[in-house]
């Protein structure tokens, strides 16, 4: 097990390296001069040249990439043009907000989505099942951005239950969490249903029933535990959706997380910040999926990491 974790950690290195190369190359193709962007339209050419030299923008590309890489390994992702603060420090200061939102969103999505999937499938009630299918179709196809605005109009402006312009309290977390959970919950509900239906038809389930195991035991022990693997995989993939969702949701609900930081950085062409957020996002995603991989072994004892 420890050996497996170690090997998995090693495989992260080429993936992160790939992300680094990719972001570095992309930023080389962007129009405009970072030094000029940083200083604004009134800067003198001398000042721009000076800052270019300071930032190492005149060095050959491979030298620039080398220093970018070594700095990144030391946790130095550069300095934000806009706030003049270290990028990583700024991201980390905003990350707890995003973590709160994605964590509560994920909790709602997992319990709501998986729960709805189980109930709709197991109850064998055709209407309940159809209702779930239509409802999840809605969850899948309604853009979270639109859902966010509509939910503000209904629950904040209309019913006055929540603040329309956000805040720090736990109550302000409710509406954005539900909105951000809508898409992932729908995906999970559908995955759960498909997975359960497949497992239900398996021979070992028939055997269990033939043995005279109680329906409750069949469901919990034989069906659910075997159906969990694809569900957990999808949960891992949905983390990426939640992080993307945070970009919109944080802007609409005026929350100060990493997603909001990303939007501001894009609009003010704060290249080091954009690059930092991309790398940071990739990092988080990779670790979440490592965690999911390790979870497989817990869920299915047959999976052994050699």
């Amino acid at each position, binding site marked *: 097990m420890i050996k497996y974790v170690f090997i998995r950690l090693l495989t992260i290195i080429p993936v992160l390296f790939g992300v680094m190369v990719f972001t570095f190359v992309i930023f080389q193709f962007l129009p*405009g001069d970072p030094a000029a962007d940083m200083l604004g339209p009134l800067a003198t050419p001398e000042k721009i040249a000076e800052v270019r030299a300071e930032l190492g923008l005149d060095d050959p590309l491979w030298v620039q990439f080398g220093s970018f890489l070594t700095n990144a390994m030391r946790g130095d992702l550069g300095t934000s043009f806009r706030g003049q603060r270290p990028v990583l420090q700024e991201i980390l200061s905003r990350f707890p907000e995003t973590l709160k939102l994605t964590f509560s969103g994920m909790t709602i999505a997992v319990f709501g989505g998986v729960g709805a999937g189980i109930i709709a499938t197991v109850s064998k009630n055709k209407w309940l099942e159809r209702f779930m299918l239509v409802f999840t179709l809605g969850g899948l196809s309604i853009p979270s951005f639109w859902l966010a605005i509509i939910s503000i109009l209904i629950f904040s402006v209309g019913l006055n239950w929540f603040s329309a312009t956000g805040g720090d309290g736990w109550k302000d977390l409710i509406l954005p969490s539900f909105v951000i959970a809508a898409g992932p919950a729908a995906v999970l509900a559908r995955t759960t249903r498909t997975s359960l239906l497949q497992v239900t038809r398996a021979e070992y389930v028939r055997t269990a029933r033939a043995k005279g195991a109680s329906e409750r035991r069949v469901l919990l022990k034989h069906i659910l535990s075997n159906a969990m693997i694809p569900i957990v995989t999808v949960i891992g993939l949905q983390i990426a959706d939640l992080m993307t969702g945070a970009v919109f949701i944080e802007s609409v609900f005026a929350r100060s997380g990493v997603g909001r930081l990303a939007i501001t950085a894009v609009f003010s062409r704060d290249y080091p910040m954009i690059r930092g957020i991309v790398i940071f996002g990739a990092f988080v995603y990779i670790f979440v999926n490592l965690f999911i991989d390790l979870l497989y072994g817990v869920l299915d004892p047959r999976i052994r990491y050699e």
Partner: protein
Amino acid sequence: MKRLKIFMLVLILAMLSACASPAPVETEAPASNTPQVGGTLVVAWPQEPRTLDPALNGDNAGEFVSNLIGANLATYDPEGNLVPYLAESWTISEDGMVWEFKLRKDIKYSDGTPVTAHDFAWEYKRAMNPETASPAAGTMLAFTADAEAVDDNTLKLTFAVPFYGFGTAITNGGYLQPVPQAAVEANPEAFGKSPIGAGPYVLKEWVTGEKIVLERNPNFTWDAAFTHGGPYYIQNIEVRYIPEYTTIVAGLEAGEIDYAVIQAKDVQRIKDTGKFQVYESIQAGVSPYISLNTSVAPFDDLKVRQAFNHAVDKETLIKVAALGAGVIQDGPCSSTQFGCWSATQEDFGYGFDLEKAKQLMQEAGYTAGANGILEKDGAPLKLTLLTDAVRVKVAEVLQKQYQALGVEIEIQTVEGSIMFDTLRSGDYQIALNGVTYPTTDLEMAMFHSEFGAYNFGFYTDSALDDLVMGIIVTMDPAANAEAQQALEQHIMEQAYIVPLYSPVQYIAVSNRVKGSVFSEKVSLAAGLTQLYLNDAWLEEK
């Protein structure tokens, strides 16, 4: 028709400003008409400031907050008259080269230390230093050669050329204000996050990405002559940074926001809540306008430029592209711009006249070719109109209107700073651009061949240069107004640009805010949305 429209607009504005004075509300006790100290005014703003160091700041998000934390030498009263503020009085030398200010003796920073002329001189010099690369204050001090403190209460500014428009610069407390030298020097970077000023408010809290909270400055024991003359009544001002406009509108409707800039399409909706006054005013500047590159064909030809002016149906343009929220602008400045010869808004003679435009094109040597596209020497007149994403709708209407003239226009949308670089490089023929600015000094930036940072038309007209310098250096107000008129007439005789319309801006202010806060002439003119909070107070929620 246009006169009628303008008259109607003035009437509406007059009615609105009449509404702005506190009207007695029947259901409330009369006590609510006496100012009371306290409350929190919640302002919604789309972007967060980069810094609150006035010399380093260049965005209006920072300007708005810095203007409440600090103050400058003079200010505008609600009628638009220049009145003393931090300076008690000032004198301008005969030749206009030296301005001397006598400062008030009772002004203190929020930390209690007195404000001296040395702080002014030091801060002005810091903004003037090219090393500082001050985006806004540096520009305002472009003609200032030196700033020195004669004694603790006397500030002397020496100019490179006489500068009539400097009167406006000294009213801007958002960019130009005295700061304590020691505090800035101790930690220049920290100062941008925790500024100290001599204005009516103190920074209490800045939650990055969320809000800035200001608290009433108890050391602000004075104020301009037109006010009650002491600390402001509103205890806290909370500026919330909400990037999504729809959320701002929802926040207004939910009663969580007291003050926000809104778009024309939401004016009725906000008014219908019954909880807001919606004030409106024309934006100062020339935005949008069509920039014509006069150094290349076809716009090196006066007749073509005139034809392009005649071919635009501005009334339709405003209806379609601005949802009616605009007034026709025929000259190089809008009627709310300080110093603009406002009588000229419709006197330049470029009404919508397609026949005349066609005739002018013919005189310029163009004939109708295949598909009705104009041709000259066998080459069809096809142009690429450069625009940024914000003005695409305007560009599309213009594309259609110029098609009627026989000009084929392709729209190229580029990102804001690329647009600026392209315009400055001259590598274009025609572009849709816009500049907002409170005073007519803007015309120097736009039209002077040497000093014009925004001379995107590449004008090299010595008569034009002389006329531009005329409005800068003529210190006598009456003579300056004449110079202004001559300049505007020359610009439009030469059809150097195609002015389109002046947008109307809207600002929603909660009925909780009592007292007269809006000045039609000043509040929105500078593009700043600065209300007069000096005498305003808040009713409890």
